């Protein structure tokens, strides 16, 4: 059995009276890409956000059930959420670099967590930019504004930034949907490269992207995890009729 990065047990999320996620139990193996797909409002983004406790900040949101990472249930009230988010990186749909230099974008996290040594920070900046294949493109303008980068470069910068605090899990919410096809292909290549070290959970509306990049796919419908299996199985022979209908474009 492969090494487990994280698992949920009967995870439910409520917005007020409405149950957005219904007792979802899901395993996430280390060094695998897991795609979450489903029509708008199916709960896949809510589920993703609950994995690093981001629903905490939404008024009226309530989370039940367990999320286990490194032998700890992170839904327990005594969890240090800042430490938790150090272990779980997050990448959003629209690239959101800080209004700072490229260098400062990357150095921000490590500094926040107490690293002051300039040489150490330089090392982290270079290695994270290399991991996201940005180093050669930006090494001559590290002091330049991150906002001058193209959209695709900004997104890779944000991924690099999420790596600086050495997480084991990366959550990505539609990381390529605002990008052109070439930048999208680069992000997908990057995902394939990063999965050698990280467990990556990606929400995507693009089913073919899910088919291309992921090892496992989970199909959500109205808050239920309808089917969760090897991606190849899901896209050639799903066991549930509703999965087949959704990925074949019969609804959604």
């Amino acid at each position: 059995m492969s090494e487990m990065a994280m698992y949920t047990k009967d995870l439910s999320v409520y917005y007020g009276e409405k149950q957005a996620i219904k007792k979802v139990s899901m395993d996430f193996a280390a060094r695998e890409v897991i795609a979450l797909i489903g029509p708008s409002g199916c709960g896949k983004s809510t589920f993703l956000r609950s994995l690093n406790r981001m629903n905490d900040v939404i008024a009226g949101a309530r989370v039940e059930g367990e999320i286990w990472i490194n032998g700890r249930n992170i839904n327990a009230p005594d969890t240090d959420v800042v430490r938790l988010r150090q272990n779980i990186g997050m990448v959003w749909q629209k690239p959101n670099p800080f209004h700072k230099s490229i260098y400062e974008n990357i150095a921000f996290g490590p500094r926040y967590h107490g690293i002051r040594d300039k040489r150490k920070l330089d090392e982290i900046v270079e290695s994270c930019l290399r991991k996201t294949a940005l180093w050669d493109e930006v090494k001559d303008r590290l002091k330049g504004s991150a906002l001058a980068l193209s959209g695709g470069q900004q997104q890779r910068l944000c991924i690099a930034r999420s790596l600086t605090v050495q997480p084991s899990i990366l959550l990505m919410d539609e990381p390529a949907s605002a990008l052109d096809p070439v930048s999208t292909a680069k992000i997908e290549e990057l995902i394939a490269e990063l999965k050698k070290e990280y467990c990556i959970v990606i929400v995507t509306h693009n089913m073919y992207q899910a088919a291309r990049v992921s090892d496992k796919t989970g199909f959500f419908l109205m808050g239920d995890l309808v089917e969760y299996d090897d991606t190849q199985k899901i896209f050639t022979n799903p066991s549930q009729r509703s999965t087949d209908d959704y990925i074949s474009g019969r609804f959604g």
Partner: protein
Amino acid sequence: MVTRRELDIGLNQLQDMLVDMGKKVEKALGEAMAALSNLDAQAARKVVEADPELNRIEEQISEVGARLIATQQPVATDLRRVLAALRIASDLERMGDLAVDVAKAAIRMEGQTLIKPLIDLPLMAEMVQEMISDSIRSFLEENVDLAYKMAKDDDQVDELFGKIFRELAGMMAEDPKVINQSMLLLFVARYIERIADHATNIGESVVYLVTSKRPDLN
């Protein structure tokens, strides 16, 4: 989101072309067998001349299949429908070639008289014609039971082939003068038996299409 229209149109085109191919193959086998029974070389040549049309439809099916995969990205059941259609088309194309081989045997026997009236060979051809139409019907109806029936029919065809083989071998042993024609008729039996194998392959493709399992019906 995916629009189904183009994909549905393409899947229907594939279906129609396969039905057309199936009918043409069935007809080719029937006519080739009749040409052989009557030693009518002219009728046999017509079967040979009709074959390029089958090849053309098969190419068209490949093109439509490739286009659907490239532009519509079919998945799950739709993907299996396209893959099954491509495999079935190549089986039907091979069946057409074998029907041509039967016709060519009739051409080679032009001017001869049959060493015996043909009884079992036409019977075999009839059984296989029915298998062809059943195999196409099992595809259209996505009917697994009918697809599995191919295996049973194929066994009967094999049995009949064994009977023909023994009969012709006996005749050759008794009279060397019939060896030439007996060999040709034996080849014909073999061609028809191969057509039945391809019909059985179609049954396998249908089982794959419906269940995604790959059974061995041969």
